[in-house]
């Protein structure tokens, strides 16, 4: 178990040595899964996240069909071994809420009207959780959608910002998340800068909120670059030949 540290910011640095506006290391692999139409694996700090996309495909049960557009389903699921104390398998209230708002964020870019009567299913498994799983999941889902050839207005790129020891910091670590004062996950559509996902837990002043939002957007833009690089790298051989 983590012990609560006395302070989370020491000599102007975070406990893991990062600057206030610095992301943890992020690694993105496009298309690791064989059966899915599109997939993505992300390591974000110690988070390990796998996303798969199936579809557009037939909707079961059929009464969920929409005549004018595809439906989108999103399942955020934590593996039982992903956290310190084993998590009971299956959806809990937290994951149902995360799944709902994450789906809505992706629905804001997916061109659903191209595929009436079908479904686009997005499955994200949190294999190891270490703060910021919902944003890592969204980032992986967004790349997996692109990999599946799903038409979208742009990639969704997500990042969280938080407040610890009265200081705003990007991309909370587990300790900062546990003992911090606020956590605000944000996702943007990089090419327009519009916000597709916004939640905030904790307390901050209105002034801090503005600054936090700016920091989060900068973080999302850094994530976008990594998503883009990963997608280009999958067919990287082509450009030089």
């Amino acid at each position, binding site marked *: 178990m983590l012990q609560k540290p006395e302070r989370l910011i020491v000599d102007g640095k975070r406990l893991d040595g990062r600057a206030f506006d610095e992301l943890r290391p992020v690694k993105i692999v496009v298309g690791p899964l064989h059966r899915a139409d599109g997939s993505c694996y992300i390591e974000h700090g110690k988070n390990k996240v796998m996303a798969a996309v199936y579809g557009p495909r037939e909707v079961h049960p059929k009464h969920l069909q929409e005549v004018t557009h595809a439906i989108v389903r999103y399942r955020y699921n934590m593996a039982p071994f992903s956290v310190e104390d084993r998590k009971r398998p299956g959806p809990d*209230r937290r994951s149902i809420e995360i799944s*709902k708002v994450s789906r*809505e964020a992706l629905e*804001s870019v997916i061109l659903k009207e191209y595929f009436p009567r079908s479904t686009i299913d997005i499955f994200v498994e949190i294999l190891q959780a270490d703060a910021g799983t919902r944003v890592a999941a969204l980032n992986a889902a967004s790349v997996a959608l692109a990999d599946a050839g799903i038409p979208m207005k742009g990639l969704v790129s997500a990042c969280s910002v938080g407040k610890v020891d009265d200081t705003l910091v990007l991309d909370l670590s587990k300790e900062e998340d546990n003992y911090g004062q606020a956590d605000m996950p944000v996702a943007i559509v990089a090419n327009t800068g519009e916000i597709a996902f916004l939640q*905030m837990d*904790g*307390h901050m002043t*209105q002034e801090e909120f503005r600054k936090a939002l700016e920091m989060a*957007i900068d973080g999302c833009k850094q994530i976008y670059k990594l998503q883009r690089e990963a997608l280009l790298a999958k067919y990287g051989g082509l450009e030089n030949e």
Partner: protein
Amino acid sequence: MNDKIIAEIRKDYIYNLARRGERIDGRRADEYRDIKIKTDVIQKAEGSAEVMIGNTRVLVGVKMQPGEPFSDTPNMGIIITNVEQVPLASPSFEPGPPDENAIELARVVDRGIRESNAVDLESLCIKEGEEVWMIFIDVHVLDHDGNLTDASALGAIAALMTTKIPNERFGYGEDTPLKIQNIPIAVTTADFGTQIFVDPNLEEEHICSSKVTMIFGSSGEFAGIQKTGSGRLNVEKIYNIVEISSKKAEELREKLLGVIGNGDKKEKGI
């Protein structure tokens, strides 16, 4: 936004109205429907409140009982918030376990109470590591005409403010008022492209591109935010929403205090 099908022509009509800053029920963009708050409506509950915002109506009951604390917070009481969207409240509600909308609603209400530290959880410790007070906040939706979030959040804090800890029933001496140290207020706005409307009614909720709920504590600080729906919002719009919502939150807080009386009085009782 939701499952209800609204004819395209009706949507266009409402968006056209919005472009002129008008709403289908004649309200101004930043105008709430009539708000009514009644407390102590259920005598069996430790605290209760009924809130109406226009035709929307929710009943919130608070029950308390001693229980075992969580192992990582041995000296803190526990708050559990639940929302039931019972079928009598809307033709679109179905019996059965809470769906994603009910769960989201409960978690947003819970977030406001928890993150604003409305209740001093440490004061709810009976014996460290063994027994603490558990607070169950149950929101019962009775009539759904939009903006359940603000009604439920208002009902939850109003019910808490009138809650008496049932010491007597469990052999801990006299009943005492629950100490409330912050009053979170949730304000929900709906995005209509050119306009932001506060307190969307049901029809507005269905056709807006997204909603944002912002929760503010007593000194105007944020206690929680939730964007819901599949729209996208630019940063200016979000700042605009902050401005509108924080102003409205103050109005709602005054209204609530007008009904319940000043929170300070409560503190004296402990």
